[in-house]
């Protein structure tokens, strides 16, 4: 196993190639431009195709063409660009095409700022496009995890014939860490029984997200709903950190979870029994993780999020179902939450009687 020191964005790009990604189209935007810059060199080495699209809309539609051709395909962007991709992500879902979409999220509405943010939670988990579909959204907290999840994302996409979102943020994308890169995959499906490749020796195929047969369309929507249920049963992933004895549990994903862990180690040294639930799949959300808590013991749940207002906290509240109070500590505008702030927020809650 190779160990390398890599920047998050480049590590994501390399992991994609090793997962069998052979097509990438993207448009420059900070903080993810290293992904296309890496792939323009790397993809031709493995016989893949790189295109700089004229926009995020064009790029995701190029990915649609590649995916329809049966090729593992990816696009990447950051928040404002993801807005433009939503039309295409919706088309992928409606046309049952697999693809991986990387969102190295930044902060704020409109152009906002290029600094990291967790403001894309609702886009990734609730509405990555029109039409009420869902995707599996994976949220790495380290560069290694970004590599591993990117590598797996293509398998989820192929399995479900549905787009998958890798929800990173500017911290993960820009940070350098040592990573173990996975072996290049060879055993991904070579020929899919739905791919468009010319109708030689078979009936013609039409790939489309529209269906004039509304009875069939309704059935498709029911099948999708059943698939989303299956994800809840089979694909939920989360990390529990020191939750057994915790009377205060932090809920955080990605960068803020990583910071929270450092804060928890500090707090534990001082005798505070604090734990962490870290969703790895933010969609499907690990509601189950909150059912496992002992609510005679857990006095408070604190969501720590790098966005204002907090967004994931709504899912936490839904999971906790009023069994204990839930609140949020937030930083916005690109400020990365610090361990000291989290320590302070926890102590503050405890002093107000939130936990012992």
């Amino acid at each position, binding site marked *: 196993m190779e160990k390398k020191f890599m920047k998050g964005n480049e590590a994501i790009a390399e992991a994609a190639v090793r997962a069998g990604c*052979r097509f990438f189209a993207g448009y420059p935007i900070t903080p993810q431009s290293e992904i296309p810059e890496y792939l323009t060199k790397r993809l031709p080495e493995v016989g893949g195709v790189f295109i700089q699209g004229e926009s995020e809309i064009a790029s995701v539609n190029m990915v649609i*063409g590649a995916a329809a051709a049966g090729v593992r395909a990816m696009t990447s962007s950051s928040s404002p660009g993801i807005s433009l991709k939503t039309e295409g992500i919706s088309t992928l879902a409606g046309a049952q095409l697999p693809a991986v979409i990387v969102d190295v999220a930044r902060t704020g509405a409109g152009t906002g700022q290029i600094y990291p943010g967790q403001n894309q939670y609702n886009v990734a988990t609730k509405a990555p496009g029109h039409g009420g579909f869902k995707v599996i959204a994976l949220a790495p907290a380290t560069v290694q995890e970004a590599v591993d999840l990117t590598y797996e994302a293509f398998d989820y996409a192929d399995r479900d014939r549905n787009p998958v979102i890798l929800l990173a943020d500017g911290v993960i994308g820009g940070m350098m860490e040592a990573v173990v890169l996975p072996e290049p995959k060879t055993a991904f499906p070579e020929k899919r029984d739905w791919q468009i490749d010319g109708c030689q020796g078979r009936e013609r195929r039409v790939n489309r997200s529209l269906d004039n047969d509304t009875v069939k369309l309704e059935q498709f929507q029911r099948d999708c709903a059943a698939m989303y249920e299956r994800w809840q049963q089979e694909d939920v992933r989360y990390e529990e950190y020191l939750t057994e004895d915790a009377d205060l549990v932090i809920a955080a994903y990605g960068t803020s979870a990583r910071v929270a862990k450092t804060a928890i180690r500090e707090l534990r040294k001082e005798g505070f029994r604090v734990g962490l639930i870290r969703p790895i799949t933010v969609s499907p959300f690990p509601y189950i993780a909150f059912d496992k808590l002992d609510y005679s013991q857990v006095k408070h749940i604190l969501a720590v999020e790098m966005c204002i207002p907090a967004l994931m906290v709504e899912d936490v509240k839904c999971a906790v179902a009023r069994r204990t109070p839930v609140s949020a500590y937030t930083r916005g505008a690109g400020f990365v939450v610090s361990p000291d702030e989290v320590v302070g927020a926890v102590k503050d809650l405890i002093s107000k009687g939130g936990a012992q």
Partner: protein
Amino acid sequence: MQKTYARPVSLQPTVSGFCPGCLHGMVCKLVAEAIDKFDMREKAVGILPIGCATLSMEYYNFDMVVSAHGRAPAVATGYKRCRPDNLVFTYQGDGDLAAIGLAEIMHCANRGEKLTTIFVNNGIYGMTGGQMAPTTLVGQKATTCVNGRDPAQAGYPMRMAEIINTLEAPVYVARFALNTPANVLKAKAGIEKAFKNQLEGKGYSFVELLSNCPTNWGVSPEDSLKWIQEKSIPYFPLGELRNN
């Protein structure tokens, strides 16, 4: 008896749902005949738009991808780069190509993607019921310009073949009309040429076809052909603008 004329195998044996007198059916037939001529049905991939041309997903007898409104050239780009051995074409209306999908068509043409665009210019949004298109003629009435297109508000109709012809990369740019048998034969030859260029790996070809929309123009099919002759052709001159 010798059989001299038959339905192209690239068309399915079904009835079309285009409005009476609409020339979209003619376009489908010409494209299908050209694909048959090169014996490419089993390698053909049509990238359909959103518009009346979408109906052809029920008529063509080969593989297709139906794209979102305006995005066919981007989808076709991704597809063709992955499967260069397929014969790939986009089939787009004027709202699709010249309004919402203007960026996609310009950059597909500018990159010189080795594919073919069949552009059906009927001067109006057919599918959505007759709104103004970028190609609607000055003074022509539409549901969103009830007093006729006013250049002070809406600018002038866009001559897409000429606009594409400003780019370096395309190898073939032409405009034909579908209003007379003689013009249809020229269009047929142009479509064949555009496909041949692709099969020879030459580059991007753009074929604009002046078509009609009796339903939304509010004229009889017969009068719509006169309309093309008297109103459309003077503004959108016919011919091969580039033939490299």
